[in-house]
């Protein structure tokens, strides 16, 4: 179990984190989701021991590790740009954590090598041990970085924007594969992302952050369906802001024959499995509506009537609903 109490951290006059409380269970797969500058990476680094909070405590299984250095925390950290050692072969990279152990605890060279190759098999890179990082693709480097982090048998795996630098197809494959690995190895995994789709698809629980505070902690379902704040509603999934402080998802708007609000259609295009209709309300707000692909969409310039099927309001001060 990981417990954070009142974590605060400033860089100069800029408050990166402001009173973060969070509890994570063993075996959980957690996403720290937020825009850049939300403090999510700083929080991950504080959990890892790569950065230290100005105030507050970090506990692993009720042991206070706040002032413990990264080397003593038994965490695996995967960096955004992988940080592979480019002068070492892939197998040497993976074995690095074992090879720097104190002599008494250090396995033999043969053992380290065998273990490295085993881990490379695990991350589906068997046979690439003799290559150098520069000779690998982005997705392969990512998996080497993972194997290297796993070699020291961490209880906790931390990943900073793990899929940020990869193209869409590779990203999708790697995501599914990471999820499997997490379950197979019984790890506790925390990853940082600014991609809400990634967080919702992958995580058991999502921690939504903005401006150094936690906006909401919940399952992907909760965060999407019951956003706690206007920020969460807008950051996670798409949302329309209608008059009266109504937040409505594009797929929760219905086009009705009568009794709705009039909308002037500006643009219609195909968006995956649905029609996306963009229009303007009389009051000037832009509205996005998703329509079943089997229906005939309205044309640009046409006037339609809409009605929200499901909506959310937040108190105007922006505090928790």
């Amino acid at each position, binding site marked *: 179990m990981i417990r954070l109490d009142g974590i605060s951290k400033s860089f100069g006059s800029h408050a990166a984190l402001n009173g973060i409380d969070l509890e994570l269970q063993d075996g959980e797969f957690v996403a720290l989701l937020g825009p850049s500058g939300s403090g999510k990476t700083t929080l991950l680094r504080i959990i890892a021991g790569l950065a230290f909070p100005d105030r507050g405590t970090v506990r692993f299984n009720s042991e206070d590790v706040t002032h413990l250095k990264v080397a003593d925390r038994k965490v695996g950290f995967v960096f955004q*740009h992988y940080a592979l*050692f480019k002068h070492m072969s892939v197998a040497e990279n993976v074995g690095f954590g074992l090879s720097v152990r104190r002599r008494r605890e250090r396995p033999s060279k043969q053992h380290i090598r065998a273990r490295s190759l085993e881990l490379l098999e695990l991350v589906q890179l068997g046979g690439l041990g003799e290559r150098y990082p520069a000779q690998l693709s982005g997705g392969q480097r990512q998996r080497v970085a993972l194997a290297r982090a796993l070699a020291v048998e961490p209880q906790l795996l931390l990943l900073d924007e793990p899929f940020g630098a990869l193209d869409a197809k590779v990203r999708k494959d790697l995501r599914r594969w990471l999820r499997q690995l997490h379950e197979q190895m019984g790890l506790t995994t925390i990853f940082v992302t600014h991609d809400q789709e990634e967080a919702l698809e992958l995580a058991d629980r999502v921690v939504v952050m903005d401006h150094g505070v936690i906006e909401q902690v919940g399952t992907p379902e909760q965060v999407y369906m019951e956003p706690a704040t206007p920020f969460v509603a807008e950051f996670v999934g798409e949302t329309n802001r209608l008059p009266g402080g109504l937040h409505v998802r594009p797929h929760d708007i219905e086009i009705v024959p009568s009794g709705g609000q009039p909308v002037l259609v500006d643009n219609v295009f195909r968006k995956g499995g649905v029609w996306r209709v963009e229009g303007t309300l009389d009051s000037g707000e832009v509205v996005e509506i998703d329509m079943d692909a089997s229906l005939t969409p309205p044309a640009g310039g046409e006037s339609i009537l809409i009605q929200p099927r499901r909506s959310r309001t937040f108190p105007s001060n922006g505090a928790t609903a």
Partner: protein
Amino acid sequence: MTRDPRSLGAAQVALIAAALAFIGLFLVLPLIAVFTQALAKGFGPYFAALAAPDALSAIRLTLLVAAISVPLNIVFGIAAAWAIAKFDFPGKSLLVTFIDLPFSVSPVVAGLIYVLLFGAQGWLGPWLMDHGIRIIFAVPGIVLATIFVTFPFVARELIPLMSEQGRDDEEASLSLGASGFQTFIRVTLPNIRWGLLYGVLLCNARAMGEFGAVSVVSGHLRGITNTMPLHVEILYNEYNFVAAFAVASLLALLALVTLVLKSIVEWRFDYQCRSAGH
């Protein structure tokens, strides 16, 4: 632009010709002159001049000074570059300015600073004399002046390189359980090795070739405190041209070897940068 980019216009030809003429006149011609003068009376006098006791002692002293000041500069340079590139602390920009100071101060002034500090009439001079320590007009002064003059070479080479590489590799190493020392030896040093070698080459060339600062603190004691550049000057002032140019040719040779090594390092460096795993 419809012109074939490979064909050169008159302006380009003129510019290239001017550059080549400049290099030929100011760099290549003097270099040739050094060797022709040195060998003007054949190989016999040339080697005799190099084998003269004073020449040999100047060569020995120059090598000794380089052997002391270059390793010290490697240590200082890496330490300074490491601190500047990887950590934030108050006074950082001041430190960067100080590292550049030897580039902006005349070497003669650098020499005079040490005379003022350690000379017989200097601040610490009387105390040093009481304890029988000689710095000015002796080898320690020459080493100090050389270290001062060559200080920026290693640090200047490493700071941009280490800043660009960031802290990720080091943090990765630490997160895998390595100690600070292991991280330095196994991760940082290999990452900067070509840049470091480049800086060391330049530092060494300067350490062996420095004239101004060394001239002030050396006292020109023949066979005792004369480095090669100083010895060249003495021989030249005595109208002993063959000997002067013979010793000078060694320094010129050193410069050429440095240039060749530097090109090789640059080529390797470039290769490493291009294949850098990101």
